[in-house]
């Protein structure tokens, strides 16, 4: 099995966000919203960190 960097990030973010959503909130609606927020933060944070590393590369 081989994954690209981005597909690995997507899978990691998806699974982690599902668990965070279920465990950190008590009501289903809030679970979905918190899970979606975590997923977005993971993806945006990873892309931003990737660009930052690219820009500071000597």
């Amino acid at each position, binding site marked *: 099995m*081989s994954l690209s960097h981005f597909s690995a990030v997507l899978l990691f973010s998806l699974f982690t966000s*599902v668990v965070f959503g279920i465990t950190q909130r008590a009501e289903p609606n809030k679970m979905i919203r918190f899970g979606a927020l975590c997923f977005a933060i993971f993806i945006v944070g990873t892309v931003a960190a990737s660009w930052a590393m690219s820009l500071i590369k000597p």
Partner: protein
Amino acid sequence: MPEEADRNTGSNHTAATSVSPNLALLAAWLVPGAGHLLLGKWIRAALLAISIIGMFAIGITLSGKVYTFNTGEPLDMLGFVGDLGAGLLYFLARMLGWGQAPVLVTVAEYGTKFIVVAGLLNIVAAVDAHSLASGRKPS
């Protein structure tokens, strides 16, 4: 009296379930999602099981490393603790010799992290099952 105490402390305790919190914790640690299944929350149980077992399986198929008990490298010790969080999945991987080959490809590092994080997420899920069973988490 407990309700009055809760009101005074501002906490939000609800009635505990008939399932023992320690049993829910143990079941959830051994089998991802089993704690929530015992508590009748089967949708959450299925989602947790798919997520945690999926992460662990992807980690193994990416040729990730499964840590063994050691007292040498501190980071390896932490990796072992993280892996152990996956419960029976960890022991299954050890019995079948998964994750023992030397890391040779770049994505294997990702695999190693997937396996550790699957274990850590399972610990979070097990604590959640304990909180639900004890009534500390309302629903």
